[in-house]
Every structure is written in structure tokens, then in C-alpha cells.
């Protein structure tokens, strides 16, 4: 049984690291986004293997179901008009410098620290083979309402602020977006322009019934 778990872990780790490498190296940014989705799936599977089921499902729901779509929308709305001829990675010595920094960070700082540290793993509560009593979704909910209530509320405020902020930053002013009139509205407005006196909108007008502003001096010229 242990070998099966090791094999599964090896496959998931290979997926995660392989997809991450593809994310940072492919030319086409759409493909990079799709490899990122694969990486998120791998991380979700890793959470499931680590018996954090709620977190795995939340990972898929938030990262794959929302953030990835956000990234793909942003890519779609910011496509370069000059096509894909622009180089995706910084050129020359800067690329090798960043690669060297990342590789050194991994090989010299992270891996030796992990391997040489004495992790005091707690002993399992019973003979090997008994399932451990793990906290689940109910305890998570209770923790959010009792111990971590302040952090929970602050996270809610943060998300609200981010929502409003994103709308404000990406908002297109009204002047730039001319509304296209439906045929009924156009007809109604033409009639109103042609006649000098203001007239009531007929009762049977379908949903967007034009209730225009009071007619200004422009009509008097007609």
C-alpha cells in the first residue's frame, strides 16, 4: 500500500513540476495559462492525497474555476496587435541570471535546509494501520467562527475591496460606450424629434420604454 501511495505522489509531483516548467517557458501565453491550469489540478490532487479534502475542492473551485478564467479573459482582452512575434522571455544575460538565481535558491538554500532540519514528527496515535483522527470541514467552519473570526471578517472586507477596486480600475467611461438603440427606441425618438410637443410613451411599449429628458431648445428649431 505504501508503494502505491509513493507512486501516486511521484506522478502528482511530476505533473506539478512539469506543468510549472512549461508555464514559464512556452512562447504562447495562452498555452502558458493552460499549463497553469494543469499545475493547479496537480496541486489540488496533492491536497487530496494529503487528506485536506475541503482545501482540494476549494483549490479547484477558486483557482481552476475562477482565477484561471480571469487570466484567460485578461489574455483575450490584451492580445498584441502585432501578433506573437514579440519574445516572451527577457533576453540574453538577464535570462541566465534569473535562472541561476532560481537554481541557486533551490539547491543551496531550500533543499539543504529541508533535509538537514530535524522535523519532530509526532508519533501516530495507535498501531500502524489505524486511521488518524483528522480535522475535517466541520472543524474548519468552527475555527472560522470562533478562533479566526477577525481574520475571516478581514478577508471578507479584503475581497469586497478587491471586487470594487477591480471594477473601478478596469471601468470604461460611459462616454466611450454608446448604447445601441433598439428599433422601437429609435422609432420613438424619431417621432419625438419630428413633433414639437412632448408626447406620452404609449402604454404598450415593450420593456425599455424611452422616457426621455424634457425636450430642450433643440426641438424648437425643428
Amino acid at each position, binding site marked *: 500500500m*505504501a508503494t502505491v*501511495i509513493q507512486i501516486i505522489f511521484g506522478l502528482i*509531483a511530476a505533473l506539478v*513540476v512539469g506543468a*510549472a*516548467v512549461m*508555464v*514559464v517557458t512556452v512562447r504562447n501565453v495562452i498555452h*502558458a*495559462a493552460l499549463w*497553469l491550469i494543469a*499545475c493547479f489540478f496537480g*496541486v489540488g490532487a*496533492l*491536497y487530496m*492525497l*494529503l487528506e*485536506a479534502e*475541503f*482545501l482540494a475542492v*476549494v*483549490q479547484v473551485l477558486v*483557482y481552476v474555476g475562477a*482565477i484561471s478564467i480571469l*487570466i484567460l*479573459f*485578461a*489574455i483575450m*482582452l*490584451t492580445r498584441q*496587435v502585432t501578433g506573437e512575434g514579440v519574445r*516572451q*522571455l*527577457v533576453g540574453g544575460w*538577464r535570462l541566465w541570471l*534569473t535562472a541561476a*538565481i*532560481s*537554481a541557486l*535558491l*533551490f539547491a543551496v538554500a*531550500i*533543499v539543504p535546509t*529541508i533535509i538537514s532540519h530535524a522535523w519532530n*514528527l*509526532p508519533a*501516530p496515535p495507535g498501531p500502524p494501520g489505524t486511521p488518524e483522527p483528522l*480535522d475535517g470541514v466541520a472543524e*474548519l467552519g468552527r*475555527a*472560522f467562527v470562533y*478562533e479566526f473570526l477577525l*481574520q475571516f471578517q478581514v478577508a471578507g472586507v479584503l*475581497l469586497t475591496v*478587491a*471586487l470594487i477596486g*477591480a471594477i473601478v*480600475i*478596469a471601468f*470604461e467611461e460611459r462616454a466611450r460606450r454608446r448604447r445601441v438603440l433598439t428599433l422601437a427606441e429609435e422609432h420613438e425618438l424619431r417621432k419625438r424629434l419630428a413633433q414639437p410637443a412632448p408626447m406620452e410613451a404609449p402604454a404598450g411599449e415593450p420593456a425599455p420604454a424611452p422616457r426621455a429628458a424634457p425636450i430642450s431648445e433643440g426641438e424648437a428649431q425643428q
Partner: protein
Amino acid sequence: MTAAVPLEAVLVVAGALFCIGLFGALSRRNLVGVLMGIELMLNAVNVNLVAFWRYLEPRFITGQTFAIFIICVAAAEAAVGLAMVIAIYRNWLTVNADAVDSLKG
């Protein structure tokens, strides 16, 4: 899981993911590509935290709550960051990080 796979293995995977994300964030020219590198780094940190929860303190739910808060923050940051990318594109018609340099000394 704790008996089969040692904690170091999971942490090394998280570390590798972090370094790859760092490389992506520093070397990509497309602004959206930089954001993807940042998301990779946040995921690496999450994997690290959940591994610590599972191996070291499985009876306290604190590790998972930390990871959930990080997911919240990552979502908020991705939303605002991508809104800024769209606003930049609207003004400069490009998302090349080298071309958006009007604050450069």
C-alpha cells in the same frame, strides 16, 4: 500518507514550485505571464503549509485555515492585478513589461 512519503519530499516539491514561479515572475515579459509566476509561488507556499499541517499538527485545523486565507488573498490580488493589466493595455496598447517604462528614471 505520512508513513509512505517523507515530509522532506513534499517540501522539496513545494520549494521547486516556488523557484520555478520565481523564475517565471522575473523573466517573463508579458505582464500576465508575470502574474502567472506569482500564482505559482502562492501555490507553492500553500502546499508547504498543508504539508506542515498534515505531518506536524494534524489535530489543529490552523494549517488549513492559513492556506484558505492565502487562497482568498491570491484571488483578490489576481483580480486587481489583472484589472490593472487591462487598464495598462487600454492606455499603451501593449502588455510588454519592457515597454511600460514611463516611471523609469
